[in-house]
């Protein structure tokens, strides 16, 4: 089963050192998962201040700078994993450093049949821009 982990925490609660350590530790877990064939993708997100929200109403495009909803904890990154069941997903999520500071929401993917596959869609921006 494929699961997405949505990582929520208070952005302001992180020092730059903590944030760096978190990405290093998370990256190590990603490599472990990758060796077991369980890693599909992951990335931190830029702060919520960079968010742009789009709605189309009566054919009109409405843009808002900022997130869909103002909350005390913000979506700060995601992981995509492929593991046999929820228990294994919980075990991985509980190891993520972000779970110590914030909340990791686990959501099973609703898999649509017939979507195109891409090997670069989930890669972080920086790698793509080097091409």
């Amino acid at each position, binding site marked *: *089963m494929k*699961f997405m982990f949505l990582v929520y925490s208070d952005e302001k609660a992180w020092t730059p050192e903590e944030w760096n350590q978190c990405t290093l530790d998370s990256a190590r877990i990603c490599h472990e998962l990758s060796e077991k064939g369980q890693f599909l993708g992951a990335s931190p997100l830029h702060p919520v201040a960079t968010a742009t929200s789009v709605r189309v109403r009566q054919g009109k495009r409405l843009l808002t700078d900022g997130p869909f909803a103002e909350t005390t904890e913000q979506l700060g990154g995601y992981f995509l994993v492929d593991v*046999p*069941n*929820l*228990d294994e*997903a*919980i*075990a991985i999520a509980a190891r993520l450093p972000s779970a110590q500071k914030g909340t990791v929401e*686990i959501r*099973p993917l609703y898999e649509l*049949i017939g979507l195109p596959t891409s090997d670069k869609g989930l890669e972080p921006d920086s790698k793509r821009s080097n091409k």
Partner: protein
Amino acid sequence: MSGVPEQSDTAASVKDVEAVYRSESRRVFATLVRLVGDFDLAEESLHEAFVAALERWPVDGVPTNPRAWLVAAARFKAIDTIRRQSRFAASLGMLAARRQELSDPDEEIPDDRLRLIFTCCHPALAPATQIALTLREVCDLTTEEIAGAFLTAPATIAQRIVRGKARIRETGIPYVVPELAELPERLDSVLAVIYLVFNEGYSASSGESVTREPLIREAIRLARLLVELLPDAEAIGLLGLMLLHESRRPARTDPSGDLILLEFQDRTLWDQSLITEGRELVHRALRNPPVGVYTLQAAISALHSASQHYEATDWAHIVEWYDLLRQADPSPVVQLNRAVAVAMRDGPDEGLRLMDDLEKLDKLENYHLFHAARADLLRRAGRASDARKSYFRALDLTMQEPERRFLERQIRKL
């Protein structure tokens, strides 16, 4: 069923099939959930297998191993269903894989019922859903019975069960006994479900009567099953605790259904065989440290059971157990019970002092038993008018009829 020949000469009656249904249906169901990986398909094929048994057994006799017969029959029905559905299903490959799994049924693994319990009590399900699913799928209570026991509308329970099963399917909650590393945490949620069911049966939170026997029975049955399959110390302690409580049920209410406190119970009515079994379980649990909260409560209950009169209770020992319990579970309710035990050991004033601290610290303001216990100590201390105030406060807060009548009697007696 050993000793019954494979092709019995004596034809089975409907009664025989019903007897097998009562004793085996949940075991067969647990195995089927593993084999077909879906609660609803397992339930449906289980019923079809019993329909087949009603047709075949009166002709062929009861098979030597009825459970294996039923699992095999249900498996064929499930394969049939999947084959029929496959015409409409999107992913044929997935169904082929599932048919492959289905074509290889192991014989029943004793773990199947344990898997079922762990799945129904998975911490990713809300407690209300865990309870409804466990009573429905493990205990085989009907939706109406569960609704009756919890004074809820059957439609609410039915919806909870349907949503629970959908959540198990969609979120990928596995059908497994958890690994050793996760076992303590997962077992906690199983024990909590069993204890919640028991408590609702033993001290109904609302309604006309004090107890609801079906819930007590199911909770004890579940705990026995758990102890048999997974003899963990806390599971043993919980079973002991429930048996010791249950031993007092005949003495807990008067003929009109009103509550009688431990202090005034006729102890000759206590069920001695339950007490003996409960005490043995407590000793067994205490031999396997670390000692957990259920075992500690059971040890306290065992001390009450050992005493001929309320006054002769070994309060000093009980306070010692409460000290340990308070370390394991510093909840306000434990502190309140400890204060009562201290009052019995050292006099009501000492207990009242502890209760005053509790009221400030732990927001017990809206807990009816806090005010009832406080009223009782005030009465013992000879402070009738303060006692009256506390009894009235408790009366305002309780939602259970017999308890209301009890409090009114206490007020009249002042």
